């Protein structure tokens, strides 16, 4: 009798254990499916900076869609790389599955980024790269393609007596070099018309001053390519102020309200714009892909668009130029 009783007790305990194990396993699985953590470190998260806010929006949209727990750690101002280094360490301490980073420096923070890889955390670079290939995936604009589009657009305005000037931004920076190279490719056989390449150092004022100088000294210049926002807007300011908008055609890169106004007014002929929403979206989408164990493309082109006076308010461009 005792033996039998013990047997029954044993069975009951075993069955209960199995049931409990099943429940815990199931809950564990459920828990697992929930904890996909990604830390996104943009260059800045400032309400007045449409580009980065739009990128963060895109990242959030993907995070929601792919069920990712996303934390955003961002420097207070766009070029605070010391703070961004600090945020990288903070992100590593959080032990997420993936860190999505938009590095401020190309070669000044390689060691810090190396720590991400050393900690076994997967890395997705967004918008910019660093001098060492540590990332699983890079999502950003193809600067070569940007240049090509600028060049091709400029080519449309080439006439017999066209003289071209280029307003680049930072000499020997990777984006400047790539864009210039692309632009030359886009211009094709008209490349010889380039008279000069100037560098604004990503400053409106410098671009403005350089343009005024250029146009007063070389009045034959009638087509200018701006290779980033500061260069483009600076050039346009100078051209408008000098009343030369009928004479000088401008093709630029990136946009802000001032740039769009110049586009509406016809000072700027065309803008090649990046797609920050896509950048953020693809960045987190690829991060999700990495978490789920799938292999992802090592380079993802987030795409660009050409905007002219006539298509500002049509379809995609309206949302692209005015994200909010």
């Amino acid at each position, binding site marked *: *009798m005792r033996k*039998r*009783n013990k047997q*029954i*007790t044993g069975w*009951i305990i075993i069955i*209960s254990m199995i*049931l*409990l194990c*099943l*429940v815990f396993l*199931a*809950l564990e699985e*459920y828990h697992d*499916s929930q904890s996909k953590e990604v830390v996104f470190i943009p260059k800045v998260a400032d309400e007045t900076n449409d580009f980065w806010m*739009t990128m963060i929006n*895109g990242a959030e*949209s993907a995070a*929601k*869609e792919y*069920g990712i727990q996303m934390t955003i750690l961002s420097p207070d101002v766009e070029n605070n790389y010391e703070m961004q280094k600090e945020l990288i360490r903070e992100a590593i301490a959080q032990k997420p599955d993936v860190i999505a980073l938009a590095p401020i420096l190309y070669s000044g923070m390689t060691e810090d980024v190396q720590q991400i890889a050393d900690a076994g955390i997967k890395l997705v670079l967004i918008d910019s790269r660093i001098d060492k290939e540590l990332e699983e995936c890079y999502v950003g604009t193809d600067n070569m393609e940007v240049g090509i589009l600028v060049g091709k657009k400029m080519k449309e305005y080439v006439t017999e007596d066209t003289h071209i000037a280029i307003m680049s931004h930072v000499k020997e920076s990777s984006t400047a070099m790539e864009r210039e190279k692309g632009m030359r490719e886009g211009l094709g056989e008209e490349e010889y018309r380039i008279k000069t390449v100037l560098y604004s150092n990503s400053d409106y004022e410098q671009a403005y001053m350089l343009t005024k100088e250029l146009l007063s000294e070389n009045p034959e210049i009638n087509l200018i390519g701006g290779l980033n926002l500061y260069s483009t807007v600076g050039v346009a300011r100078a051209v408008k102020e000098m009343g030369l908008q009928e004479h000088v055609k401008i093709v630029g890169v990136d946009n802000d*309200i001032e740039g*769009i*106004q110049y586009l*509406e*007014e*016809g000072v700027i002929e065309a803008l090649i714009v990046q*797609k920050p*929403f*896509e950048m953020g*979206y693809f960045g987190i989408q690829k991060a999700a892909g990495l978490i789920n164990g799938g292999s992802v493309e090592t380079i993802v082109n987030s*795409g660009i*668009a050409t905007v002219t006076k006539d298509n500002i*308010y049509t*379809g*995609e461009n*309206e*949302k*692209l*130029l*005015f*994200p*909010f």
Partner: protein
Amino acid sequence: MNRKNKFRSIRTDMIICFSVLVLLTTTIFMFFSIRYTNDNLKVSSTEHSIQLMEQVNLNIGTYINSMKHIPEAVINNSDIKEYLFEESQEKYKKVQEKFQSILQVRKDIYNMAIIADNGKVFINNGRDQWNEEARLEEKDWYQEAKAAGEQSVLSSSHVQNAVKGEYKWVVTLSQGIVNPKTGKAEGLLFIDLNYDVISSLCESISLGRKGYVYILDQKGTIVYHPQQQLILSGVKEELLGEVVESKQKSIQIQEERENKIYTPLHSEETGWTIVGVTYSSELVQNEWTMRYVYVALAATLIILAFAMAFFMSNEITKPVKQLQNAMKEVQNGDFRPVSISVKSDNEIASLNHSFNRMTEHIDELIKKNINEQREKQKSEMKALQSQINPHFLYNTLDSIIWLIEAGDNENAVVMTSALARFFQQVIGNSVFYVTVWKELEYTRNYLIIQQMRYKDKLDFEIQVEEEIFECKIIKLILQPLVENSLYHGLKYKEGQGHIKITGYRQGDKLIIKVMDDGAGIREEKLKQIFSEGNESHHKYNGVGMRNIQSRIKLYYGEAFGLQVESEEGAGTTITVTIPYIVSEESYEEA
């Protein structure tokens, strides 16, 4: 089949019953709840989605409706018409006042403007700068508004660039203004409403973790979509025109691995279609979560029930078990009243009660029986004690006759008187205990007679400490022992035998020894001396060794009795051990 294998305790039965019951009910309950909930989940989530869309629609409709009275107040205002269609500027102030009064109340209006075909424009407070590059006539919303004539039109969402330097997302409500002179709509009023009101309304709706809300206008253009950017650039696809056309309450779309459920709602007020999108994978996930919760609940319940079953069956069967144990003890012959504690008041309690009564009763009966047995034994002993060995009487009397015949009167007198005293103690004395002195006297008389009969064969000696003379002893203990020594020891001895009786106190015990130097007892015989069935061989004067032994034990207890030491050819010593009790009463015969 073995009976033992078939045996199952009530407790086990109860546990099995409980467990089966609980398992069965829980399983059935779970089965039906999961089924029912499963069926309900999809329907209820779709209904929930529809309800939410109605809520969104209601909110947007209320917002738009609250604006609709504004055009009425403007387009029929004669000051405004005059300002728009006449050359003069004199009504400028009136128009400004009118606009200000409206804009002051409605802060959510971004822009309000009137524009005439002749190029006349008034916007907001009149101070905002008109964007000369606006090119409104190229805009979809403007063309639609113009096409509608006097009808009011609600545009899709767009960026308004009418004010210089401002590019805000708005929804425009517009209505044509009729020139009273021509009777045609030659002017247009437009009011730009804050698009954020609509977008934040959609964003605030929660349709699971991944679900979302979007809005389309009649043509299937996006008014609001959380991923508008991706759809416009072709990265993602979305149901647009087909949802607007659809008359169904819900549409299911298989997209990659995801199953999406669309619940479109066509709004009367705005002409828009508000679409809720839920992911059925989330429903499934919910479903799984729910299942886990159910299973966890059931498992917990079952375990709890098992524990309860153990505890309860233990509690219920405890008295039965007690009863069982008590009965086992009784079965083994232990009739001490077991007296099980009776706590509750049920069948088992009354069973226990009866059992207690029964054991008590049996115990009483057994005690009574033992007493009766004792009494019977005692009376048997008495009967034995009072027996006279007829051979001894005959032999003695014969000896006396011989003495008389031989003329030895003196010895005849001694012997007769000894016989007389001997019998005096046997006959007519009903008391059970006597003093040691009396017992010794009795034995001495016996020995005197025997000594006279076997003159050269017997010699005796009594050395008893005076201290014990007044002690109590059962009658007829020593004499049979002496008789025993005489007939078994000395009788077979060549020459004169010697009997010595000693007595002393040893603590609370009284020791009397009867020693002879006779033939002794063989070892194997010695062993049997107190055993049953041996009585006949040692029966003298009707009283054997065993009898004496059992009498001592009966009256004094197991700690007392006889001890025989013997060596063949050297003699025998019989030791009587009894408690030392000083007699208080006199046992003189009445």
